[in-house]
């Protein structure tokens, strides 16, 4: 089965705390791609990052970092020193190789409290 699970439906943290959003995926393919998207309260979906299955290096972009672990089929997203502007719904997604479609998780709603 091809599947993405975001077990955290909703998370609330106080501003400046670090927060990690979990993503677990299932796929039969050895080559695949993983994504994170952000949907702020304004509603648009914004692409954040794509990783391929052969690149397990963690990635850092400013306050954002991503931890990809094939051994646990996880692609977790950490926001360091969270800010109110980080409040959004975050989607993890999977694109199996040779597939035209992306499979989205159900999303995690993140509230950053001032």
């Amino acid at each position, binding site marked *: 089965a091809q599947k993405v699970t975001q077990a955290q439906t909703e998370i609330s943290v106080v501003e400046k705390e670090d927060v990690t959003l979990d993503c677990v995926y299932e796929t039969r393919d050895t080559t695949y791609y993983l994504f994170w998207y952000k949907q702020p309260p304004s509603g648009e979906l914004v692409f954040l990052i794509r990783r391929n299955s052969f690149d397990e290096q963690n990635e850092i972009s400013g306050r954002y970092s991503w931890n990809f672990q094939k051994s646990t089929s996880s692609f977790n997203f950490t926001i360091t020193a969270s800010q109110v502007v980080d409040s959004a719904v975050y989607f993890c997604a999977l*694109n199996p190789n*040779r597939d035209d479609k992306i499979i989205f998780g159900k999303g995690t709603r993140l509230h950053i409290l001032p």
Partner: protein
Amino acid sequence: DAGITQSPRHKVTETGTPVTLRCHQTENHRYMYWYRQDPGHGLRLIHYSYGVKDTDKGEVSDGYSVSRSKTEDFLLTLESATSSQTSVYFCAISEGSGVGKNIQYFGAGTRLSVL
């Protein structure tokens, strides 16, 4: 920002009426997608297109049809709208599949209410 325009942005209609949503892109991307977003379900694929006149079904295609007569336009039609089709509809585009091409970029969404 990817050049994707969805129209209308908001629509209210009555049960049983046909509705057409339009997605227009200026990126000349090969692939176009229609999703619906509902609370508790995330994003679900309705239909997608991999070229002019080439379309395929997604996981929630019943009650929807699509057409793509030009690279830049992808139409989603609700043949006879029902209240269960009240949702936010997103169009997305991508260059293709595989390395460097499979990032999907999304339009701003259409909020549809079926009364």
